[in-house]
């Protein structure tokens, strides 16, 4: 559940909308479950990809239906650690905020690929199945996304 919620929150930047999306995803999955056909075992299970594909559709529908004002992307970064967290030095917080801002300003497909790769820790093959792209296309998408982020982070 946390993985779907995390994806939704990154995409919408609104915790309430992310909860609505998460609820919608699992309710849709529950209804569609009898039609799901497993095509793999263990790490090759297609269930995770199937669930993320539902999430991607729900997120896209939500985006079309409800264009709310997104939160400042830095608010997500600031929520990463409690203010009194001794590990959160000013330097690391600044770096986190800059990286977050750079990711949030990526074009939608690149941003989604980066989130799925780094937050949800999916493989390029899995992301390709979710996004309807080849594994190679996803690799290129992420390569370009990281190049953009790197340019943004350069002093």
């Amino acid at each position, binding site marked *: 559940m946390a993985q779907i919620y995390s994806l939704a929150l990154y995409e919408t930047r609104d915790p309430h909308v992310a909860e609505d999306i998460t609820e919608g995803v699992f309710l849709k999955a529950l209804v569609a479950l009898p039609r799901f056909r497993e095509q793999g075992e263990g790490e090759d299970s297609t269930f995770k990809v199937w669930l993320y594909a539902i999430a991607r559709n729900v997120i896209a529908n939500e985006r079309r239906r409800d264009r709310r004002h997104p939160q400042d992307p830095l608010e997500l970064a600031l929520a990463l650690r409690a203010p009194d967290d001794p590990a959160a030095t000013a330097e690391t917080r600044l770096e986190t905020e800059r990286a*977050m801002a750079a990711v949030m300003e990526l074009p939608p497909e690149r941003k989604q690929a980066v989130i799925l790769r780094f*937050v949800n820790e999916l493989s390029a093959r899995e992301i390709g199945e979710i996004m309807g792209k080849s594994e190679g296309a996803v690799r290129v998408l992420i390569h370009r996304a990281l190049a953009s982020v790197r340019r943004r982070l350069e002093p």
Partner: protein
Amino acid sequence: MTRTPETAIELDSAIDTILRGPIGPADVEEGELSATARLLRDALPRLHPRFSFEEHLAARLAAARRIAGGPVAAAPPIPIGPRLAVADPTSPDRIDAGPVNAEHRRLGLVAGGAIASGVSLAGAALVVWRRSRSGGIF
């Protein structure tokens, strides 16, 4: 430090290594985009919903399954919570909601355990559904 450019395939392989590795800086020199990947791995938080939301959603899913009459709809609601967490059946903390047969107890343990361990509810539902179709015992 001079960093070398990487191809998309090299970068993808490096990301796999970075995601599997420990948090923190690289032990060896790495490519410029690998360094950016490492930064993102450490900078992008994994976000979690409120616990109250998880409970709310679990209740909604249980209700939806009963209404929709799914493959396991004949079963009563899956008990989730402290009742199943109490190992000792004679404990005064036990909340007895009536007779619960072994099958239902196993279903509840699967669902409750899935939530506790962060596994998706739909994943738990899939397991329950598969078991119910195969007629197997957990």
